[in-house]
């Protein structure tokens, strides 16, 4: 699983240490100033400078003087109920039918023989639900107010003592409510689909002559080896991301084996992540090595030297690790020569106190390139100021909740690759169902944002245009990050105009444009730059849906950080307030025009 260091931040770190609160405040002020300026220009053109200013000031005054303080929850609720019923009349529940059809046929596409089918199943249901719900929110929100205006039913509302804030909020709440109901049903169906889809049972196929070693039969394209202890109990090896318990009991003199249900494929580990630094061959801090891969996610350390990967952990509490420090790691090996093909590359793990005075004995390991677990006992051998002695994990190594973990590569001329999220401490486990629920909360937040945008656009655009505008925001939110590659000069082939010219002139993206006219080429590039800058500016105003997605956490069995979810909640709240205010102004302006 890929995690960026910024995802580890707690809510307070994100708000205060990383300056998000300050940035948000600056954004509010800038947008307010910009909004005021644009509205004033429009009002000035319509009514002249003095009158225009007055009308704008009046709208703002109304908002704070009457509309906002006198907004009634009961009226919002009444409108929300109407929106809810309207949505039901528009047959939105058909989405559930579509989803059921989708998961009925999903078995055709999901590969049970994959290394970890749970990942595929969970990713599938979360992605399918995400797209369906976002589309639902889009269609619901974009057409409602324009349809009311077109049918003139809006007059039956605005002639009553209902404020624009209540109309906007009522719609948002109503649509969110129906969306939540649909999402809850989809979530329930998904959970059942995942649990049932991954559930399977094995029988014992062969048992060794000692009656303790055996192999299960093949089910779900895999089988397991197991070994029983003297009491006739055992656990199978891990295959396809899970294990089973095996018990042998004597019934009428015959041994009967029972293989339990899968364990570990639906998990929610609670990891503690640390920050990572690398050192070079001489032990001096550097940025890590690139061994030639295009991906920059992992950096590498050289083998047979002091080159190390050093994780600095904080908040390591003794209460979370009563039986020792459980380390989970997924380290990659890179060989510059094949060497001994059968034996994996070797690494060393060392624990060190933050003041670097005490360190543990080296723990050698063979690189697995998949999840590998090591448990560091509470009492262990180590060194204090380079002198060997018995040390205590939490008294000597962990200081104020901080500890360092160092990884080195033992084999000369071979390399080990890692990113910050590739080594974590396992501080217990939460239930999969709860984590699954949190994943759906994340989807719910995205839905609410889309509804907010849809309602906002629908206050001043006609239905189809509002839908296209919301869809554009959605696309920009999902794929907007690609625009950054244009500006970082990593993108071959130029912007939209250059791309069209290349298609017409049959020039691949790796070739120079070479139109034989430098002025023309410059013009094309300038237009592209202008267009892309415009889109980039728009992008920064819409939420980054790619970052709001949390399905990886659920799929990879990692407990979704509460801090991250809270952060997403705040972001959604920010967009909710922003779109409500903009929607209010537009609706108010329409009223004035009417």
């Amino acid at each position: 699983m890929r995690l960026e260091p910024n995802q580890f931040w707690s809510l307070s770190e994100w708000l205060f240490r990383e300056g998000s609160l300050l940035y948000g405040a600056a954004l509010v002020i800038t947008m307010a100033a910009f909004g005021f300026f644009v509205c004033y220009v429009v009002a000035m053109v319509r009514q002249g400078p003095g009158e225009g200013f007055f009308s704008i000031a009046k709208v703002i005054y109304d908002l704070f003087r009457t509309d906002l303080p006198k907004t009634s929850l009961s009226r919002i609720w009444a409108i929300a109920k109407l929106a809810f019923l309207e949505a039901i009349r528009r047959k939105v529940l058909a989405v559930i039918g579509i989803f059921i059809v989708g998961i009925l046929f999903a078995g055709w596409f999901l590969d049970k023989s994959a290394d970890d089918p749970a990942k595929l199943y969970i990713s599938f249901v979360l992605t399918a639900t995400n797209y369906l719900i976002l589309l639902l929110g889009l269609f619901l929100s974009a057409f409602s107010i324009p349809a009311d205006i077109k049918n003139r039913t809006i007059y039956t509302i605005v002639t009553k003592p209902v404020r624009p804030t209540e109309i906007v909020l009522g719609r948002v709440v109503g649509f969110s409510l129906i969306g939540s109901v649909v999402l809850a049903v989809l979530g329930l169906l998904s959970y059942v689909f995942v649990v049932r889809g991954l559930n399977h049972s094995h029988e014992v196929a062969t048992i060794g002559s000692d009656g303790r070693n055996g192999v299960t039969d093949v089910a779900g394209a895999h089988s397991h080896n197991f070994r029983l202890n003297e009491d006739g109990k055992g656990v199978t090896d891990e295959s396809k991301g899970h294990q089973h318990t095996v018990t042998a009991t004597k019934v009428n003199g015959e041994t009967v084996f029972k293989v339990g249900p899968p364990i570990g494929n639906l998990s929610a580990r609670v990891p503690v992540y640390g920050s990572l630094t690398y050192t070079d061959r001489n032990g001096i801090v550097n940025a890590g090595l690139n061994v030639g891969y295009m991906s920059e996610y992992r950096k590498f350390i050289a083998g047979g030297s002091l080159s190390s990967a050093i994780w600095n952990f904080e908040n390591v509490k003794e209460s979370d690790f009563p039986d020792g420090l459980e380390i989970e790691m997924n380290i990659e090996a890179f060989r510059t020569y094949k060497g001994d093909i059968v034996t994996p590359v070797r690494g060393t793990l060392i624990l060190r106190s933050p003041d670097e005075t005490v360190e543990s004995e080296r723990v050698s390991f063979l690189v697995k390139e998949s999840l590998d677990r090591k448990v560091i006992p509470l009492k262990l051998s180590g060194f204090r100021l380079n002198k060997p002695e018995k040390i205590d994990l939490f008294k000597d190594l962990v200081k104020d909740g901080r500890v360092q973990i160092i990884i080195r590569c033992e084999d000369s001329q071979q390399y080990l690759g890692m990113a910050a999220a590739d080594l974590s401490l396992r501080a217990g486990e939460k239930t999969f169902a709860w984590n699954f629920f949190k994943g759906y909360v994340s989807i719910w937040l995205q839905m609410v944002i889309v509804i907010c945008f849809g309602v906002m656009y629908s206050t001043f655009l006609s239905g189809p245009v509002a839908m296209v505008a919301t869809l554009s925001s959605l696309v920009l939110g999902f794929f907007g990050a690609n625009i950054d590659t244009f500006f970082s000069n990593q993108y071959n082939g130029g912007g939209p105009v250059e791309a069209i010219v290349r298609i017409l002139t049959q020039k691949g993206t790796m070739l120079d444009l070479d139109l034989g006219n430098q002025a023309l080429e410059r013009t094309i590039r300038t237009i592209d730059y202008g267009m892309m800058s415009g889109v980039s500016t728009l992008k920064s105003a819409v939420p980054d849906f790619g970052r709001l997605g949390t399905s990886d956490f659920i799929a990879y069995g990692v407990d979704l950080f509460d801090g991250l979810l809270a952060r997403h909640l705040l972001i959604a709240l920010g967009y909710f307030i922003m779109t409500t205010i903009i929607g209010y102004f537009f609706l108010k302006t329409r009223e004035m025009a009417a």
Partner: protein
Amino acid sequence: MNTKALYRKAAYICGIVALLLPLFLLGQPPTVKSTGSSAEPSASASASSSGGLLSQIRDRYDIGQASLGQLDPASETMRLATLGLRGVAATILWQKSDYYKTEKYYDRLSATLNQLALLQPHFVSVWDSQAHNLAYNVSVEFDDYRERYAWVKKGIDYLVTGTKFNRRQPILQWHLGKYMTQKLGRSDEKRQFRELFRNDDEYHQKLVGYGLDVESADARGADRKPDNWLVGRLWFLKAYDLVRAGAYCKKNPLYFYAENPYALMYSAEAMEEEGTLDDKAMFAWSRASNEWDAYGALDIMTSWGHTVQMGKYDVALQIAKDANAKFDALVGDIRKEVIANSKDKLTEDEFTAVNTPTLDRTPEQQYLVDASLHKYMPSKNMLIQMLPKEKRSEALALASDAEGKEEYAVHVGKYRDQCNYDYWEMRGRLEQKPVTVAARRQMYEADQFLAKGDLDKSIGLYEAAWQNWAKVFRAYPKMMTEESADDVLKAIKRYGKAADISFEDSFALSDFLKYRTIRDRNKMSEVGNEMFETMLKASAQYIDGLDTAYQVGDAVPEPVMVQRSSDPEEQGNSSDKPKSASAQTSEKATARVIAPPVERKPAYDKSFENVEFVTPDSPRALQTQSSPAPATESVESSDAAMTRPPTLVVPE
């Protein structure tokens, strides 16, 4: 107003119907199954029964959905669900798959590739390149060879799915054969891959499900378990069956059909490498050799528009020779006269160059010889012009016939070169001989004893192996330059270290060592080439001796040295010995004139020119303390080299 609207609507309807008509004619599906063969639609099938134009074209070229391969509901659903944006969806999936590969999300890559292929199930390149991606590019990213093996299998499974959607694409089956043979059998981890494969019962069952009879004797190796080379061969045979059934394959037939015998040869080779060195190995090689002969008897279509049979090269040469003889008979003595009279046409330099033996010519002289060829060697056209008029047309026909046949023989030769036909033919014949198998077994066992530290047994076995290898190299000198010979060289090195000896002329493989030393330094070495030619000429007499192998404890035979035509000892009675190829060439070149005596150093003087003489500080020296070699030795001291054979070393 209403009437106007009615007219307008009627006009729209007429327009729609008018547009529908051609659509109907083009796209009407067949209502009755065409009675004609797919390639040639029956003339009796009426237009209505065979459908519209598009349907007929589909039928004619066998490109209807059902003809291409399996109809998969999942695939059809996906294609329909994209609402005509299949291309866009495919492009997005390609980009996604590329991203997943770059960022190493391999499970997702695999899932995306499945979706991608279902979107374009009849696009053969997708299956082909992405299967390769999985089996070759993704698999090597894992450090654990078992994980690599699993990804090779994923690539194979992916391609198998492709064959179901494209049942008339033999290239897919052929590639499956390549993955299963080459990827599993020739990678660095081939030993581990082959071991995993032969014990992968679960996968064997899967292969049975794919329609491969992996349980049959044809697919089992020496240990009676499925062998990757032999199972892969079954895919090749499936591809050949498809082509025989009329499917088109754009692969060059030379390479397309070579894989079947290659698989058998490599299977036999792997079997020997893994220690099966008995009758089973001999049988495996004999089977491979027979298959190679069958390959040689195939009519291979060439780029010149005619077919060749590579196994009939000698016949083609003989036919060309006979045709030339007929022409020569008609021309009579005219050629000799022209050659005799052409002396005056050569410049002094050209004359000297022509009369210098081939091996002694400088590059400039060789250029002069080639450039002046037309002056002293008349062309067929020249000779025809000199014939009486009544004979010219017959001569022209004979000349044209001879040239055509010569050209054909050249084409056969070129195709043989491309697939290394000579080598594999020789290898197949040689490896089934008791001597070769014994040599390999002794070398293998010697290695085993050496690993255990039993030096006496190891050395005894090595020495027996050298006797057998000496027989092999004498009978088939070309083997000295091949991969097997590299293994022998390495083994000699191990033997040298174990026995702590230096190699002298009495060593059974001294000729081999000398030759390899020269050749490994310079492949174009004339001395090396002459040595090789000499051995080649003498080789025929040793072939019969390959049926009896030398065993440990047998009496050591007298060393057989290469008979060099220019050995100083043989200068006096060289007429009794077979002449070297170069000697023959120079004889030909000087046939017309009495060549002035050319002072020429004996070739033997140069034969050790490139041999590395042992020096006390040479890191590669394998010698005992009791036989120190001179510190330096040079070509100038060739006389000394003649009297005191140099100590040989194993080339790196």
